[in-house]
């Protein structure tokens, strides 16, 4: 899976390296859910800057992660959505339930700290 998940303080940071297949999106979802439980993380950042498409499948998977994390008291922040991807998502009508968004990793960490 072209994703690395790192632990930093009480946060998990998942960086996606390249385009993901649906199978890889599901692997990422499951890995995040497992890691959050294991480390009792208080926050999760998913960096999607490498994704040139965020479609219904990715949105739904991110929302599932965020909703589950919320039940466990962890915040989920998606960072790095590209401008063209953001416009496509809003034109599509895709929503990221329970997800916080920030410009990039730095802004995401700031948001978790606040």
């Amino acid at each position, binding site marked *: 899976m072209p994703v690395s998940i790192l632990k930093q303080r009480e946060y998990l940071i998942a960086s996606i390296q390249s385009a993901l*297949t*649906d199978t890889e999106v599901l692997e990422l979802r499951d890995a995040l859910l497992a890691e959050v439980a294991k480390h009792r993380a208080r926050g999760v950042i998913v960096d999607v800057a490498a994704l*040139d498409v965020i479609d*219904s499948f990715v949105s739904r998977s991110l929302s599932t992660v965020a909703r589950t994390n919320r039940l466990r008291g962890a915040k989920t922040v998606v960072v790095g959505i590209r401008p*063209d991807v953001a416009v*496509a998502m809003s*034109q599509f009508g895709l929503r990221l*339930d329970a997800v916080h968004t920030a410009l990039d990793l730095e802004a995401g960490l700031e948001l978790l700290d606040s």
Partner: protein
Amino acid sequence: MHIASDADTVVARQKGREAALLIGLSRTEATFVATAISEIARNITIHAGHGEVVIREVTEDGRRGMVVVARDEGPGIRDVAAVLRQEYSSDAGLGIGLWGARRLMDEIEVSSAPGMGTTVTMKKWRGIDEVGLLLHE
């Protein structure tokens, strides 16, 4: 392009983006096209197992644009109109892909019947220009 797995879907949407940029669509419009292809190709792998996606340039009434045709021989859709009409809900199955594609593309046409497979034809135009108007004066 043959579509039989989610890896094929990734290739198809990348090809779609490249084609869109070549034809002269903006970066954002190219992302619209890539996202629509992603949805439609997923419908093929999930509901029909395999099928194909064909991407072409079109010129029609003086307008330039691209057409994406997605074809499969899967179970088909009983009520196409109802699928296209449906409101967004995050757990909608087949419908969400077509629904999104309709919002992202300029034109979409779905022909399908139970047992007859499904063909989705979608078009995206480069900004409407004067040429089309001139030729139809």
